[in-house]
Structure formats: structure tokens, C-alpha cells
């Protein structure tokens, strides 16, 4: 109960600021917090990246293992994206199987990578119907201070971009790198009091009625979208969010990928 009142107060505070054209941390509405991307941080993973957006911190590790393909795609490798919202990262997260928020997070990141066809799944096939590479993208959230999805998506693509295929470990030969065909970047905006803000902080995420994640590719095409939250949006607002999404993705791609 006590906590909910605090939430209400913070929401009111954030909304008041936005009405006056301001944000908690002094940013402009279309401004991201500081971003940092550190790669190859986990020795045991075939690819990894630690991404910070402001105080939000996400660690993505990619493991590549041999497995059997799905029966309906015998000549394609497998990508599995998984998120753990471990209780270390937020007083709101709880131990237990993935809930709808962590499932949505994983699925949106996955959708961006699939939609952009970044990874050529055919190249992950070793023996049709028998042996393919399984690529496990594990998103480990360390500190949730808002906008997890952009950090997770950025960590995923950064990890994939210098993936090492562990041929040696399985006694195989072949290319150890995987040519990437695209670099999808997710940009999340929220609607608060009729305004569109990019990269919501934790409190802004709570205060917003709606949020939209737009994932776009190097050529500016869209490769995934997801509206979330309990509010409605006008077409023009969504168009603006798409516009911002493509623009900001370009900036992030240039700077960090």
C-alpha cells in the first residue's frame, strides 16, 4: 500500500514535469540517456555484451551449441531468446518462471532479430535434419532503471555481431564467424500527457499510458513493433513514434554497432 502511494506521487511528478516540457533528469523529449556497450565480457559465452542506458544495465550472453533442428525446418539453425528478470535487478521482480513481462521482452527482441533476418539460419545447418547450431540469446537484466527492451535488443545484436561459432569444441571445422545481414535496433517511446518521449526512465515507464517499441534496420525498414500499456494512441502519434524510432536507431547504430 505504502509503495503504491509513492508510485502515484512519482507518476504525478513525472506528468507535471512533462506538461511543462521537462523530464526528471533534464533530458529533452527526444534524447537518450548515456549509452555504453562493452563486448566480449563473458569468457564462457560465444558472444556477449554489457549494455548500459543510464543506470539501466543488461548483460546478454549468447551460447552456441549443437542440437537437432525442428522437424518443420530441418535445414535451419535455431535461435532461442530468453529473458531472466532476476530479482537482483529490481524490487519488483520475483523468482520463478518467466512472467508475461519477461516473456514479452524476450519475444520482442527475438522478433526484431528474426524480422530483420539478421542471421542466415541456413548457414547454421550442419547436417540436414540431424545437426544444426542452436543459438541461445540469454538476456540477463542486472539493474532495471527503465527501458529494458532497448538495452536488451542492443545487447543482443552487439553480442551476435561478434559471435564465435565453437567448431573446435565439437570437433568440427569451418568458419568461426557468422556473417550478419543486418543490425536491427529497438527504440522505445512513451506517451505521457500527449507528448512523445524517447527512452523512458523507470518512473516515466510507470507514468506512461502507452509505450511503443519500434525496431528498424540499417536501410530504415521496420522489422518489428510492439505497443504495450493500457492507453490508446492516435494514428498520428504512432506515426511520430515510428519516425523517431527510425531516426534514433540510425544514431545508435552508427555510434555503438
Amino acid at each position, binding site marked *: *500500500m505504502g509503495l*503504491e502511494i509513492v508510485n502515484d506521487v512519482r507518476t504525478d511528478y513525472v506528468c507535471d514535469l512533462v506538461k511543462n516540457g521537462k523530464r526528471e533528469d533534464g533530458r529533452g523529449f527526444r534524447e537518450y540517456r548515456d549509452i555504453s556497450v562493452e563486448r566480449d565480457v563473458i569468457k564462457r559465452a560465444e558472444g556477449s555484451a554489457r549494455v548500459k542506458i543510464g543506470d539501466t544495465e543488461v548483460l546478454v550472453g549468447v551460447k552456441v551449441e549443437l542440437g537437432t533442428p525442428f522437424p518443420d525446418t530441418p535445414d535451419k539453425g535455431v535461435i532461442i531468446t530468453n529473458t531472466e528478470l532476476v530479482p537482483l535487478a529490481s524490487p519488483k521482480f520475483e523468482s520463478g518462471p*518467466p512472467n*508475461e513481462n519477461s*516473456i*514479452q521482452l*524476450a*519475444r520482442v527482441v527475438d*522478433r526484431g532479430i*528474426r*524480422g*530483420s*533476418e539478421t542471421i542466415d539460419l541456413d548457414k547454421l545447418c550442419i547436417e540436414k535434419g540431424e545437426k544444426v547450431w542452436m543459438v541461445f540469446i540469454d538476456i540477463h537484466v542486472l539493474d532495471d532503471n527503465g527501458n529494458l527492451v532497448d538495452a536488451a535488443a542492443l545487447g543482443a545484436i552487439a553480442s551476435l555481431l561478434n559471435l564465435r561459432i565453437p567448431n573446435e569444441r565439437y570437433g568440427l571445422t569451418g568458419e568461426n564467424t557468422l556473417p550478419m545481414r543486418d543490425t536491427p535496433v529497438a527504440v522505445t517511446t512513451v506517451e505521457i500527457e500527449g507528448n512523445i518521449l524517447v527512452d523512458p526512465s523507470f518512473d516515466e515507464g510507470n507514468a506512461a499510458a502507452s509505450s*511503443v517499441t519500434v525496431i528498424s*534496420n540499417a536501410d*530504415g*525498414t*521496420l*522489422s*518489428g*513493433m*510492439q*505497443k*504495450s*500499456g*493500457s*492507453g*490508446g*494512441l*492516435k*494514428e498520428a502519434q*504512432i*506515426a511520430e513514434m*515510428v*519516425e523517431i524510432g*527510425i531516426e534514433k536507431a540510425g544514431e545508435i547504430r552508427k555510434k555503438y554497432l
Partner: protein
Amino acid sequence: MKEEIELIKDGKRLDGRGFDELRPIKIEVGVLKRADGSCYFELGDNKVIAAVYGPREMHPRHAQDAKMAVVKFRYNMAPFSTNDRKRPGPDRRSVEISKVCREAFNPVIMRELYPKMGIEVYVELLQSDAGTRTAGINAASIALADAGIPMKDLVSSIAVGKINGEVVLDLNAAEDNNGEADMPIAMIARTNTITALQMDGRMTQEEFGRGMKLARGACHQIYELQRAALVTRYNQNYEGKNKREEE
């Protein structure tokens, strides 16, 4: 890259539809006895039933919201609704869809009228053919109204997508499996307010804009069908009631 499969021939889709054409829709309201409200909805080969229970006491208590009703939404596929049998119980896909659908109704349900209560919406996919979540939202919208849940307006839903480079309305399974993009949308048709939006695949910003326009038109059509079904149901009830009173 997917090999391109011919989905459009002579300007028509394989099932004969034009680019902006909906599949046939069939609606029956009040089909279940136990539920407080219900609706059977067909969209092409999709067959879905929605049931609504509530507002009723919410369990467990700690899941209650002191200020407004909590809406539960469960999208579920029957094991026999798909080509390969679906294992019973929720999977990641259905958990995500349930969340998106629930949020699609939050802007219209007058939840503040029922603090601490629960409103439960159950959608069962009996036969699926792509676009199941849009059929489910359309059915749920009518079932909510049938249950007498106060709503500001109905929610209508449809998907648009891209096949063989063309932006088209309401993909069926063959189109969805072999197409380039799919974008399910839910909206309050009368105010053009979007309450759900997802996109999968690859499309340009311009195609996205065209898709939105197509979806808007279709949602208006669906809204009229939903309204008509509810009016029919209301008249039936009214007649039934009068008849009983006359007896």
C-alpha cells in the same frame, strides 16, 4: 531469405480476395449458458469462442486493485485447433498474446466502477487460420458487452500484412506463413484510437502507413458487424422477456 511463393495472381489473392478485403465473418452472441457473456466468432477459417465472467470477487486478495477492477484475459488454443497438435496449457506465445489483448481493452472498460473486483475474459481458439488474436479481440469485445460490462466503446481488430510485396488486409495462414510481414491492430473504431499494435517481419515506413489505413477501414466494417450482432441479441432478449411477461 524465404523463397518467394506466389500468393497473388492476376491482382487477386489465392482465396480470391482483393487486397483490402476481409474474410467472411460470422457472429453469434450469447452462445454459452454458464458465462455472464459470450460470443462465437468466425473470421474465415478461424473459429473462436469468448466468454466473460464478472465483475466478481477477485482471488487471491493480494491481486486486487483497491481503485479499479482487474481485467484477466486468457487466450488459449485448443489442442486440436492447429495442424500439429498444440500441447495443452499456456506457452510463451499465448502469454504474450493474452497480455496484448488485455491491454487492448483497458482503455475502454470502465474499471474504476468496480474497485477490488475481477473481470475475466476467456478466449478459446477452436480452429485457427492466422489472425487468431484479432478474431479473439473481436469476440471478446462482444462478449464483454453481452455480459453488461460498462465500456466506453467496442474494440475492433484486424491484421494487415505484406505478401509478394503488396500490403493486404487480413492474412490467412498460407499468406502469413509465406508473407513478408504481419501487423495485428486493435482500435476503437469510432475514435480511431489504437489500443493494440504488433508487427512482425519487414516493411517500410510507407508500407506501414498504408497498412494502418487499410486496418482502419476494416475496423470500421467490423465495428458495424459487432454492433449489429449486439442489437440482434438485445432484441431477442427483449422479445424473450416480453413473451415471458405475456405468458
